């Protein structure tokens, strides 16, 4: 189980997250939804140790303070960043191979590649092409495929639907659902609340760096979520 206690993080003097206390159940798919600037990506960056934070982050009850991003990734806390964070001057296949950099993943790189190409046939066509020359959606697929190569135990996904055609969005979400079936704990940051809700077990709604709603996905009506999302009424949750 992954947990934050009074998490406060930001950039320089700007605080983005205010005393966030959240729990993410093991083996569950938790969707983090909210409008632009709510602090969703910042939360993922703090969880992976990319930015400094105050408060505590606990993984299986153990505080993560001081743990480096690369150590966490090597142990299976893997983040799929937005597509801009691909290695632009390396080929698609080299990008994917780098996903298998942690020592425990190096054994079956070619099997991993086959799996990713089966999921995203487009990437097989473009495997020798520089990742910087791909469209936004294709770069997103590279980021996703690279994350899968890391054989994540906990997978943090940042806006997987961004820039993807609706058909491919559905494919990506079916992949995410299958990963969950396989026992991976997933944190999904998504602006598209409808698709997010369709696969999530739990939902946290962030706005202005604070939690506005935490509930099982089954208990949430989309209308209510949208009201909170756009701050159309005083919060009562």
């Amino acid at each position, binding site marked *: 189980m992954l947990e934050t206690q009074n998490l406060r993080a930001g950039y320089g003097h700007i605080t983005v997250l205010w005393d966030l206390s959240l729990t993410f159940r093991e083996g569950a798919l938790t969707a983090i939804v909210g409008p632009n600037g709510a602090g969703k990506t910042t939360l993922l960056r703090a969880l*992976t140790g*990319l930015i400094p934070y105050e408060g505590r982050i606990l993984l299986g009850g153990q505080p993560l303070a001081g743990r*480096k*991003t*690369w*150590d966490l*990734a*090597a142990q299976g806390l*893997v*983040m799929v*960043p937005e597509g801009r*964070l*691909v*290695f*632009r*001057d*390396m080929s698609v296949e*080299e990008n994917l*191979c*780098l*996903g298998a*950099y*942690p020592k425990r993943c*190096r054994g079956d790189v070619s099997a991993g590649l086959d799996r990713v190409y089966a999921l995203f046939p487009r990437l097989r066509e473009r495997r020798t092409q520089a990742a910087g020359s791909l469209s936004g959606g294709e770069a997103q697929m590279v980021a996703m495929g*690279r994350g899968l190569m*890391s054989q994540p135990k906990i997978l943090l996904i940042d806006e997987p639907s961004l820039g993807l055609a609706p058909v491919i969005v559905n494919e990506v979400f079916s992949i995410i659902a299958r990963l969950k079936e396989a026992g991976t704990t997933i944190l999904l940051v998504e602006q598209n609340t409808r698709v997010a809700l369709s696969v999530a077990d739990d939902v946290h709604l962030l706005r202005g760096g604070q939690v506005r709603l935490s509930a099982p996905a089954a208990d949430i009506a989309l209308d209510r979520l949208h009201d909170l999302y756009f701050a159309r009424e005083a919060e009562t949750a």
Partner: protein
Amino acid sequence: MTDLVLQALFSGLLVGSVYALVALGLALSFGAMRIINLAHGELVLLAAYCAYVVEGRLGLDPYLAIPLALLVVSAVCAVLFLMIDRIREHRELNSLILTFGVGIILTNAILLIFASDARTTASATLQDATSVGPVYAMNGEVVAFGVSLALMVALWWWLKTSWYGRAVRAVSSNRAAAKLMGISPVRTELVSFLVAGALASFAGVALYTMSVVQPALGHALTVKAFIVTVLAGVGSIPGVFLAAILLGVTEALTVTLASSALQELAGMVLFLLVLFLLPNGLFGARARRG
């Protein structure tokens, strides 16, 4: 006259391959660490003097100096890396000052120990000439050229296929994304620095066995490596190789057709011309400017 020009082209090609090794070392540490190691030429010089010690003082074959050079240069690289790693703020700028200072210290240390005399190999075998068609080369030059080519292929292979090599490229390409792949950037920087040092070691021994070395050479080599890097415009190994040969040939033609006093000037003029006419280098993408 044609023979002279052909000879200059050939000599330029041979020495250019060693310039390429020096420039690739500079480019490698710049790629991963985003710092320009102004002491890189002095690392090459250090290796050259290792060869001098082994041959001139111990009376052994200068190529036996390679392990010694690797050891000495790696040690200096490691110390230099630890110093750079301690810089907390404005690393790009502060590391320039730091490495510039270290370069001066190394040059003067060599001057103090070995005096300012020019040194070169005394081996008759290495100084013997081989003819290749109408042109001639010292055996030492031919060996240096072969070794340089082999090292460039090895470097390319390492960067392409080994996990450490891929990590170096990943960190050079996107630091944040590399961290997310489980790559430790500091360890990768150290690896890139040590590989740059290894290239400098070979380049130094090569220079001693094919040409003349003296304590002031380090700084000149750093400048040459810098010129080559800007000429190439991209970090690709073939690009750096071609740019280095262009510099070597320009220098050799200047010496043949004008005067050896103008050798360094020729490189600078070439450098300025490229900066004015092709600011992205000979092989850089035209679109990426500023």
